[in-house]
């Protein structure tokens, strides 16, 4: 009746996807957030808008364009051709790429806000104390923006876990490859397997509650107001 391995597979896949996406977003999002916080370029707000688009776009729209881009005729397909595959659509790698775009604003925005919050002064102080820009980025900016990194990481992870529309568009429903939690729940309901749906949905409910509570507590703990 109840196959726990069957339930476990989408959970594991979802955690893997969210973890990889979060790490990728911290690596990609931090320089973007830094640039958005410090640059005086005219194009700054245009880039910021592009990053924020997934907040308002229907996931199906984002998913559609991603599908085109990842497919055999898009740049994703061309890239996949390099190692002999035909397409990045309907693969785990494709899901990671889609999730990075989809969750980008949730990571970039808090980090950007944190970089903006402390202003120029701490970096100027560091410069007068002989710290090069690279040095002061790691020893001053990153530690001061820690609450932003925390929030960004938690939100990015949680948002990727809850992703549904984009996954369905570009990943489909391949067990062990692209069948993540939200799709699995949808499936179980479709096929009237309410027990399985209950277990996964209840788990998500508890998880979401825990995430938001943890984040609130973390911010209280780590938010030390400056002088």
């Amino acid at each position, binding site marked *: 009746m109840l196959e726990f391995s069957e339930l476990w597979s989408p959970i594991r896949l979802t955690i893997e996807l969210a973890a990889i996406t979060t790490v990728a977003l911290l690596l990609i999002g931090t320089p973007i957030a830094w640039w958005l916080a410090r640059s005086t370029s005219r194009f700054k707000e245009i880039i910021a808008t592009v990053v924020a688009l997934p907040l308002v776009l229907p996931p199906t729209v984002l998913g559609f364009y991603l599908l085109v881009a990842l497919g055999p005729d898009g740049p994703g397909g061309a890239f996949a051709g390099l190692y002999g595959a035909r397409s990045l659509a309907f693969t785990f790698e494709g899901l990671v790429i889609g999730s990075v775009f989809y969750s980008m604003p949730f990571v970039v925005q808090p980090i950007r806000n944190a970089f903006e919050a402390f202003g120029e002064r701490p970096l100027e102080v560091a410069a007068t104390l*002989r710290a090069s820009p690279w040095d002061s980025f790691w020893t001053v900016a990153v530690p001061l923006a820690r609450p932003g990194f925390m929030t960004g990481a938690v939100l990015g992870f949680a948002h990727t876990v809850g992703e549904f529309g984009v996954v369905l568009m570009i990943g489909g429903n391949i067990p062990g490859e692209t069948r993540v939690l939200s799709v699995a729940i949808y499936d179980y309901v479709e096929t009237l397997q309410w027990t399985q749906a209950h277990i996964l949905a209840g788990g998500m409910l508890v998880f979401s509650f825990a995430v938001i509570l943890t984040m609130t507590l973390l911010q209280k703990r780590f938010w030390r107001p400056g002088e």
Partner: protein
Amino acid sequence: MNAIEAAFNGTLGSFQLDVAFTAPTRGITAVFGQSGCGKTSVLRCIAGLTRLPGRLSVGGDIWQDDETGVFRKPYRRPIGYVFQEASLFPHLSVAGNLTYGAKRTSREDGGNGVAFDDVVDLLGIAPLMGRTPTALSGGERQRVAIGRALLSRPRLMLMDEPLAALDRFAKDEILPYLEAIQDSLAMPILYVSHDMSEVARLAEHMIVLNKGCKVAEGEVGQVLERLDLHPATGRFEAGVIVTARVIDHDDTLKITHAELYGQKIDIPLVDAGPGHEIRLRVRARDVSLATERPKGISIRNVIAGKITEINEEPETAYAETLVDIGGARLRARITRASVADLALRPGKPVYALVKSITFDRRAFAGETR
């Protein structure tokens, strides 16, 4: 070559700065002016935090020269910068803040190799080491910020109104430390301030700025005697600095008798032994003039002299006068009506009635009573 030579000319937003000056490489040089006169901008240009067209050399090293395209990045300049707000790193302890700059410099920088313990002792910050900046008082924070700057082996200290954000008590707490730094570390300090009493107490040399331009430069005593600097120095702060010699003390009445160029004066008890020279500040508004020696008056200090200059301010009721007291000069701010009634003119003998005298410090540092 052994000086700080700076020249900056450019615009910051709508503000035009055009300043050139030379400061000695020892002692405190004050950069003085009203708020908005550009003094902080000058300091930032010297630190390299703001870039304006110009030229800057410090002790023979060129830090900026637009003709040859030289511009040293701020982190390549051996400076110690103290901001108006202490700006300690909130994520580091006091000890972490203090060593931040020290860790990034080496003795080869040729900077002033002050020992960690010496700075900690000098500033009295040993008990604060393990604390976080948020747990410090305003005065303590600023002391740590000064220590942090000193420990980065600077060849030049830049201080941007380090006392302005502090209350009176914290100011009085910090001032002796600034004097101690000046006395024990041979390091030039550029000190930005809009407070004449701070300048008079600390600095030997001063540069006066007004609306982005330099209006005066020189020894503090000489600059303060000038009558034409009102717009820049502010009316009520106008005054002069004189040097007097302690004769003796009256511990009962808490008065120190002193000699000012042959004339006896009384000042509130100061901590300096007989024979020591002390630096005093006399504000123009605390000096009145009389054409004969007054009797039956509570003012103790009546100093004979001769008027050398009168500067009437047509748009006000006042006139600024300069009185030669035989070796030094006093400024007196009196009404134009008095000038007319008493027929005051240059060359006329007068008595300067000094209502209050501020003791700045012993003229020769390091001597104790």
